[in-house]
């Protein structure tokens, strides 16, 4: 066998085996040592990352992609299901990035969770999640993808509810599961349609046969699945609620890896969508709505993790817009660059939260520029990358997306929403940086501010390097499959940069006005709309259950108890009879002896007559 393909296939399988090994060591009944999390899990992820660089380099050099089919697992009647890994452009690039980010997060988590007695279990859950995610991105058939999909969903539930003694955490975990489940309905519908009509769950066969079919129904199912998993508008409230989990969980699941699973599904199955205008328009409009809505909600939040969560949701909407533009590669590029700076933003938030003794409200932070220089610097780098500052990581993906949006012949409304959302990104990023790092301290004097532990600083530094150079490296190494439009008017070319600067200048102006009493009271309706997340959770989480429960109660009480049992059933019959008996017996007034005597006389005379 050719050495290239041999190295490629074996190193990719080795990556998965290295990740599974620590999980197998937990199966033995002897108690693990205290340092298991660090010695086994973190080391295995580091080694897996280094091993996965090998296929990446081979792909870079020669462009080899591979499909590894290992084992014929089972068969349903018309087709059979194998264990099959597809390592193409998307999964070969995503796997090293996911492993790099996870490595940094695990190292950070060993500091963040060091006082937790169940830290080994925490790391096991994170590793299990990572394995499910790798399975998802490397799946070559829908069944394996579904396994990974459900796996990440369940691990998300377990990790969000890590501090299960807290009622809010349990509610948030349940919310995550329920909203993801609604999306899963779409995925299962798509899988069922594919099994029935295309008779296969293998991706290659689906691509080949789909040209003869009208794929609108399964595509709507897939878009629903992406809406649930990637928190698009309508199924989005679980993502800000998921911030109840520990910060490493937020950094790994809800910024870099799990929430992009929905977008990744659409990217993987994009050839089905290329020619279907309904699906493309749905993606475009849904993504534009999501990005603007969540960016607007982020403007007035006061919890630092919630602001970052909403910014994640906004960027996911942007990725969805890109898919609607028929540019899956740009969406994938944004997934990769976004992973770096978003994970770093979460790690910086975690470091700040722990240093201020678990304070998460930005109104109670301030002046950390001098007290935590490394963390606040990296926070600033991450925010700049997020807003698309030229030549940092986010610029290459975000600017390319907005240029593609500007030069396309599609929905202008979606374009406007996306541009407004981009300016909002600058506003809330500046708000975070201003409240956290600038000004005078607003926290208690004896806060345990300490960022000297290498377990904190090294991950943040690594991700900072990633946020700076990742965009450049990825775009300069890999050819785009669709030619971007290079010539456009100067205003359009600079549109992203212009709206970002406008947003930043507006935010600066507003901060300068805070001590000048520009308005006596704030404008209440827009502030409340934004702070209450558009009233969406307040309405949906209360109204729908209330309607369902009151419907149930009226069925049980009024329909069954009052109507069926009492009015028409046994009690109704008896009450009717009593009424009739009373009406009749009013006529007789109880002269029993007289009636019976007359009866006796009549009967006796009749019998005597027959006798004689």
């Amino acid at each position, binding site marked *: 066998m050719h050495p290239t393909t041999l190295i490629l296939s074996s190193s990719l399988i080795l990556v998965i085996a290295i990740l599974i090994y620590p999980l197998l060591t937990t199966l033995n009944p002897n108690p693990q040592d205290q340092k298991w999390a660090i010695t086994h899990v973190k080391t295995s992820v580091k080694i897996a990352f280094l091993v996965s660089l090998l296929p990446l380099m081979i792909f870079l050099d020669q462009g080899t992609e591979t499909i590894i089919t290992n084992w014929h697992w089972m068969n349903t009647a018309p087709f059979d299901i194998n264990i099959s890994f597809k390592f193409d452009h998307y999964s070969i690039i995503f796997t090293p990035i996911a492993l790099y980010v996870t490595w940094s997060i695990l190292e950070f988590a060993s500091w963040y969770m060091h006082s937790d007695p169940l830290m080994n279990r925490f790391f096991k859950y994170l590793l299990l999640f990572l394995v499910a995610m790798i399975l998802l991105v490397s799946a070559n058939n829908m069944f394996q993808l579904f396994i990974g999909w459900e796996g990440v969903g369940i691990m998300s539930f377990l990790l969000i509810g890590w501090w299960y003694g807290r009622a809010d955490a349990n509610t948030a975990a349940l919310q995550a599961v329920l909203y993801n489940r609604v999306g899963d309905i779409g995925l299962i519908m798509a899988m069922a349609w594919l099994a029935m009509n295309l008779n296969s769950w293998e991706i290659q066969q689906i691509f080949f046969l789909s040209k003869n079919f009208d794929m609108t129904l399964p595509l709507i199912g897939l878009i629903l699945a992406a809406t649930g998993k990637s928190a698009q508008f309508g199924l989005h409230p679980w993502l800000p609620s998921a911030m109840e989990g520990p910060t490493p969980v937020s950094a790994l699941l809800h910024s870099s890896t799990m929430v992009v699973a929905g977008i990744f599904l659409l990217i993987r199955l994009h050839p089905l969508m290329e020619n279907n205008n309904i699906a493309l328009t749905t993606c475009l409009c849904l993504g534009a709505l999501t990005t603007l809505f969540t960016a607007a909600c982020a403007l007035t939040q006061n919890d630092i993790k919630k602001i970052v969560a909403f910014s994640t949701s906004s960027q996911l909407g942007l990725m969805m817009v890109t898919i609607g533009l028929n540019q899956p590669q740009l969406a994938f590029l944004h997934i990769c660059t976004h992973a770096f700076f978003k994970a770093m933003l979460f790690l910086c938030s975690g470091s700040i939260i722990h240093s201020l003794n678990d304070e998460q409200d930005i109104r109670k932070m301030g002046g950390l520029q001098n007290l935590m220089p490394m963390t606040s610097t990296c926070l600033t780098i991450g925010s700049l990358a997020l807003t698309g500052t030229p030549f940092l990581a986010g610029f290459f993906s975000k600017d390319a997306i907005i240029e593609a949006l500007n030069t396309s012949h599609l929905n202008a409304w979606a374009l406007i929403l996306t541009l407004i959302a981009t300016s909002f990104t600058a506003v809330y990023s500046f708000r975070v940086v201003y409240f956290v790092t600038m000004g005078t301290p607003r926290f208690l004097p004896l806060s345990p501010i300490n960022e000297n532990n290498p377990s904190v600083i090294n991950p943040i530094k690594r991700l900072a390097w990633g946020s700076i150079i990742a965009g450049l490296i990825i775009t300069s190494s890999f050819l785009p499959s669709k030619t971007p439009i290079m010539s456009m008017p100067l205003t359009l070319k600079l549109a992203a940069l212009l709206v970002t600067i406008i947003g930043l200048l507006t935010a600066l102006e507003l901060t300068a006005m805070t001590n000048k009493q520009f308005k006596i009271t704030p404008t209440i309706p827009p502030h409340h709309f934004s702070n209450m997340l558009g009233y969406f959770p307040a309405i949906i989480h209360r109204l729908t259950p209330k309607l369902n429960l009151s419907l149930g109660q009226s069925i049980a009480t009024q329909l069954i108890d009052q109507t069926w049992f009492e009015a028409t059933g046994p009690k109704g019959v008896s009450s009717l009879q009593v009424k009739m008996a009373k009406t009749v017996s009013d006529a007789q007034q109880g002269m029993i*002896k007289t009636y019976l005597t007359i*009866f*006796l006389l009549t*009967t*006796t005379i009749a*019998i005597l007559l027959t*006798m004689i």
Partner: protein
Amino acid sequence: MTPVHFSFCSAFILGLMGLTFHRTHLLSALLCLEGMMLSLFIALALWTLQFEMTGFSAAPMLLLAFSACEASAGLALLVATARTHGTDRLQNLNLLQC
């Protein structure tokens, strides 16, 4: 009239007289009612034998079943009367009437 015919006719009429002219206890009226039912049972059985209609053999059983229901209804009324008035003596029933 045949002797058998005469015997159950007279049993019926005597029971009816007992039901009509009961003086003290409600329970005696109910007992006479049971006696009437018994004589009717014998009458139905004789009817079947006299006319040799074998299809009619189930009729006495039906009568017995329904008479059991009626007897239980009567006993329930007795118990209700005893609960409200203390005894089943008939003088108590209109004691408070002026």
